[in-house]
Structure formats: C-alpha cells, structure tokens
C-alpha cells in the first residue's frame, strides 16, 4: 500500500499501463492544463495523508482564473454556492421531518459537480448514484422540483415516487440517481449502446463513489464499454470514504484512476475542489469520448464535509479528520471565494448580492415544495406498468384477492 502512496504523483501513470496508441499526447495539453494535472494528481494513500501533502496551498491553480471570463467565474461561484445552500436547507428540512428516508448531501462536492456538468452538452446523458441532488440541479432540473421530490410531493421531478436517491428527468437527460451501488454502470453502458446503435454523437456520463470500484458491475460495465467502443465517461467521486470504510481498506489499488487499466481505459485524476480543473479535464475526456467513441475514467477527489448521510454523525472520523474535511483549504466554495476575491473579481457587494439571491431562491424552492400537494392515494397503481394488461393487481393491503 505504501508503494502506491509513494509512487510518483503523475496522471500519466495510467497511460503508461495502456498500449502506446492510447497514450495521451502530452504536447496537446496547454500550460495551464499541465500545471493543473501536476498539481492535482496527488496520490491519496495513507502515506500521503500522514505527511500532509494534501494540505498544500492552492495558489498553484490561480493561473486558471486569468484565462477565464469573470462572468463565467462568477457564474460558477454562484452555482456552487447555490448547491451549498440548497443542501444546507435540505438538511434542515430533514431535521424538521419534511424529508424522510435516506438523504445524502453533496456538501464539499460543489466544485466537482459544477465542473463536471459544465463539460456536458445539454443532450448528453447523466447517470448518478444516490448522492444526486446537486447533479440533478446542475443538469438542468428546476431546483424547486428537486426540493419537491425530496418532500415527496406531486410536483417533484419523479412525482414523489423517487425521493432523495432517485432524481430523474427525461427532458434534461438526467436518467436517474440510483440507490444500489454500481447499479447505474450497466445502465450507462446500455444508454451509450443505444446512442451508437442509432449513430448519435451524445456522450453518457456515469457518476459513482469510490466504493463502487470494487463491485462486480464496475468490472463488467467497464469491460463492456471498452469492448463495444461506447462513449461513456465514468466519473469516480473519491471522497476517501465509502460510508465509513476508507479507500485503502476497500481497494487493493487505491489509485482509483488507474483502475481502468485492466480494460485499457485511460484514466485521469483531478482535484475536485477546483472547478476549473474539473471542467477542463472533464471537457477533454468527454470530447475525446465523443470523437474517439471510447470510454474514459475520471477520478475527482474532494472532501465529504459531513457524514455519509444526514443522520450519520461520522463518529468513525477522528477530530483531526473532521477538521481536515471542513477546513478552508478543502472547502471548494471558500477556496474559490478567496481566489476570486484576491483576483479582484468577487467584491463584497457582489458576494452579498449573490448570497441574498441564492438564499431567496433556496427559500423559494422550500416554499414551493411545502405548498406542493402530497400524491393522492388513488394514484398508487398508476406507474406499475407502461402497457396495461388484464389482471394487474390494484388490491389494497386489506382488500380481498377477489373483489366483488
């Protein structure tokens, strides 16, 4: 394990494991991109953690800011802030018992989500796991309807049938948050198969957590995707912990971006706290998937600021780990705030303005959800089957099998 951790932090390592024909052309990377890769492709092994190399400052990525229009940077900032406030409101609604069931938040993942979604075309498809609220919003769903889904109301994106783990919207092509670890991977491969079957040029993005890289569906899907030349970008969100089990405890190869090597799938690792790094790396992989009709693997690492779900106090974390997960340098929003402020792009006035408008919009989403009707019990049997056939059961629990 130590050998992994001490390996040269170089995202080309994966390329080195694949045949030369798949080696990315280094010369094609811009100075900025290369810089970002060198900065972000740090191994996440125990040795790295104990030596504190993850805690390095962020000044290295600042050159990226000067290459981007201020309005775009401010847009990213606002979107990230929105996700943060949305999830905080979600947690609040959960404690108020407005939201039930399992509820997993994207706190700490905001830069990754905004970066990933900024790299997709509107007609590209997205599959995710159950930590999906932010993805749903960023793929284009109305946040009010996402909140209404959390509340289990009729105006929810899935009419209250899905809940937190199952955001879905055909129009924005977010084809589902899925609750079974790994379940979305074969589906994503199949969606890409349908695209190629019809000769389309859309790409499928398939998001998952770090724990997913050890389940059978991972291996079967990556193999099939490469074998059949399917345009899928598999994205592993590495927050170092599957519930409470660390990557090192569960993965024999903890450098997750290398794990496409068995399928000759190129992988890259990116600093998921850095929205521009995520966007640029993802854009490159998505467009290569589109052009070359082949899958890619992206590992984006960031910190899960709180427990696995709303009700998890994360007692398995040490105080030091908790502090690390919530520190300013690992908080993508505070980081970006500081960078934008130092660059003179984000002023106090703008910050206050955005904070107020985000707050109002989130409050509106919660109001919308609160005022949306509960589903009527008479709709209980509306969605069992798409094609009606005789003898579908519409029996309520206490009904006789043979209703008169």
């Amino acid at each position: 394990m130590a050998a992994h951790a001490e390996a040269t932090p170089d995202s080309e390592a994966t390329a080195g494991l694949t045949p030369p024909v798949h080696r990315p052309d280094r010369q094609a990377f811009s100075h900025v991109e290369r810089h970002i890769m060198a900065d972000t492709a740090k191994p996440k092994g125990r040795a790295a953690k104990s030596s504190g190399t993850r805690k390095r400052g962020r000044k290295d990525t600042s050159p990226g800011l000067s290459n981007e229009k201020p309005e775009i940077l401010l847009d990213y900032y606002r979107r990230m802030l929105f996700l943060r406030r949305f999830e905080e409101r979600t947690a609040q609604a959960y404690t108020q018992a407005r939201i039930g069931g399992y509820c997993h938040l994207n706190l700490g993942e905001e830069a990754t989500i905004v970066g990933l979604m900024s790299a997709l075309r509107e007609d590209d498809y997205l599959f995710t796991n159950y930590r999906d609220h932010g993805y749903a919003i960023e793929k284009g769903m109305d946040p009010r309807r996402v909140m209404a889904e959390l509340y289990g109301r009729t105006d929810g994106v899935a009419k209250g049938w899905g809940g937190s783990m199952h955001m879905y919207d055909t129009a924005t092509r977010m084809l589902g948050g899925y609750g079974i670890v790994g379940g979305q991977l074969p589906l994503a491969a199949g969606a890409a198969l349908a695209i190629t079957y019809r000769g389309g040029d859309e790409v499928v993005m398939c998001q998952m957590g770090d724990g997913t890289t050890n389940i059978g569906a991972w291996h079967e899907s990556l193999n099939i995707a490469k074998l059949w030349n399917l345009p899928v970008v598999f994205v592993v969100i590495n927050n170092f912990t599957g519930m409470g089990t660390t990557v090192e405890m569960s993965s024999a190869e903890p450098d997750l971006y290398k794990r496409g090597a068995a399928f000759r799938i190129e992988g890259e690792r990116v600093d998921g706290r850095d929205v521009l790094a995520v966007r640029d790396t993802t854009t490159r992989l998505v467009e290569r998937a589109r052009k070359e009709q082949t899958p890619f693997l992206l590992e984006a690492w960031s910190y899960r600021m709180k427990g696995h779900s709303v009700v998890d106090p994360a007692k398995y974390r040490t105080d030091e780990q908790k502090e690390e997960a919530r520190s300013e340098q690992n908080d993508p929003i505070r980081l970006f705030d500081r960078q934008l402020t130092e660059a003179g792009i984000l002023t106090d006035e703008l910050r206050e303005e955005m904070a107020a408008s985000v707050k109002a919009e989130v409050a509106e989403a919660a109001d919308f959800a609160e005022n949306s009707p509960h589903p009527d019990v008479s709709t209980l049997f509306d969605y069992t089957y798409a094609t009606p056939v005789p003898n579908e059961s519409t029996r309520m629990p206490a009904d006789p099998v043979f209703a008169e």
Partner: protein
Amino acid sequence: MSVITYRQALRDTLRAEMVRDENVFVMGEEIGLFEGSYKITEGLLKEFGPRRVRDTPIAEEGFVGAAVGAAMLGLRPVVEIMTINFSLIAIDQIINHAAKIYGMFGGQTSVPMVIRTPGGGGQQLGATHSQNIELFYSFVPGLKVLAPSTPAEASAMLRAAIRDDDPVLLLENLGLYNSKGEVPDDYAEPSNDDVATIGRAKVTREGSDITLIGYSRMAMVATQVAEQLAEEDIDVEVVDLRSLRPLDRQTFVDSVKKTGAAVICEDDWLTYGIGAEIAASIQEGAFDYLDAPVRRVAMAEVPMPYAKPLETAALPSIESISTVIKETLSAVGKRVG
C-alpha cells in the same frame, strides 16, 4: 396450420420481429457466432449482422443492465440468458432496475425489453443448471412473466413480449424446445399481429371432475395426464396459467367452482412455490366450492441430483400427478377409475 417445434416457433418469430422493427435487437452469450446454446438465434447473425445480433462477454449483470439502459433510450432489446440459473448473476439489474425504473421515476421512462431464458430440469444438468426459479421474478411488481407451453403460444407470447413496453421475462423450458405443435401458417410473417394477451390464463381442455393447473412444461404434461385419465373415464379440466405475472386468478377459480377440486403441478419446489399462491387463491376464491383439499405435485425439496434415477424421482411425472388426482377424487367421494 403447420406443425413445428417450440424452438422453431421462437426462432422464426424473433426473426420476424427483427425484420418488422429496426429497434429490436438481440444480445446474449453465444447467440451470434455460436448461434445460441439452444439454437434459438440460429441464422440471425448472418442475416442481421453484429449490430443487431450482439455476442456478449460472460457478464450477465453487465449485459442485462446494458439492455435495460438501451431500452430506456427506446430500443427493444431481446436478451437471452443461457439458462434461468444464470439470471441470478443479473438479478440486481432485473429486480432493482428493470422492474423499478418506470415506477420509481414516476412513469417517465418505460423499459421495453425481453429476457428470454429457459428453465427446466430432467436433462441431467445437476444442481445449478436444473432450477425453476421463475418465482423470483413472478414475485416482483413491474415485471411481466410469461410461460408458454406450446409452439403457438411461444410464438404469440414472444411477439407480445417484444411489443410490450414493460420488461417481460419469457420463461422457456429445456424440455419443451423439441416439442411440436400446430402454429398458424403466417406465424413467421413480420406482418403477423397475432399478439398473445399477457395476463390471461386459459382452459386448454374442458372437463368436469377436477381442475389440473400447470404452466410451461407442466401445462403440457397436464394435458397428457388428462388424456391418459380420460381412458379411465376421469374427466380432467386443464388450466394453463400462461402468465405468471400478472396472474389470472379468475380463470382457474372459475374452473374450480365448476369441478369442485383442484391439483396443481409444478416443476419448481413446493414450499413457497408458484403452486402455493395458486392454492391460496383457490381457497379464497372458491372456498365454498371445494370438496377436497387442494393438492400440489412439485419437485422434491433437494438440490437436483445428477444421477438419472434420482433426478427422475425428484421431478413430477404423469404417474405422480395421476396418483394425486385419484387420491383427491377419492377424498371427494367421487368414483375413481
């Protein structure tokens, strides 16, 4: 009418549906180059090419899930799982995904896919290749499960399954592939719109003494039992369940109301099996009409042995079913031939 095998009925109907609809494609292990373990896909790769006849790796969860994903985008995959035993590798994709996607997301996207897979014991294939586990899928709302017993039914049900917008598991049977029966002359025509009704059972033989209920291979055996007992002057009514989900309870309950007695024959295990649901439905729907307890003839509760005498003894047979029918009629007080 012409007489063909169950295998040919499936193959020709599958081909016809592929000709009819460009969105229909087949995938599975060994279905292309090898032309299918049981030759249902014989000739299809040559005719349609690898885009529409897709050989898969040995990865049931992966390729069944890929079929679900492709169906979500509007294709109509027909997946072959070599035998139903291997469906256990794909059970997460079938039960947690195929069966859930339409309802879980509020009816936004249907999953128009077919899983074709044979069950069946009696081929000396041993414990892991002889199971009848259709119950697992029949248990789950969101799935439809069909169990054809004749070539004509196999053709009409496969056509219905492909054209249905929900995930349908078509239960075939190793012991039926070579069985023969009449089919309409145009059964293999792409223009044939004779679609079986999903969710309907059928009285395949009328009788007055007792109702014998079966599905898949056992529906065929039930007919043989009835014909044999007719020679002993016992008049057996046979009900073929045809559709395991939705389940048409009314048809067999009406039959039991008429005959006053029922025996269920099934290739699966008795405890918690399909027959348990049938028996429970009969007691609820025809309690006052029953003249004797409902009996079940089902596989012995063991992992299927390889040795022929043991395997034969473990499975229901014409003889064992006939015996139980006579015992039941005897309990009723009716004359036993």
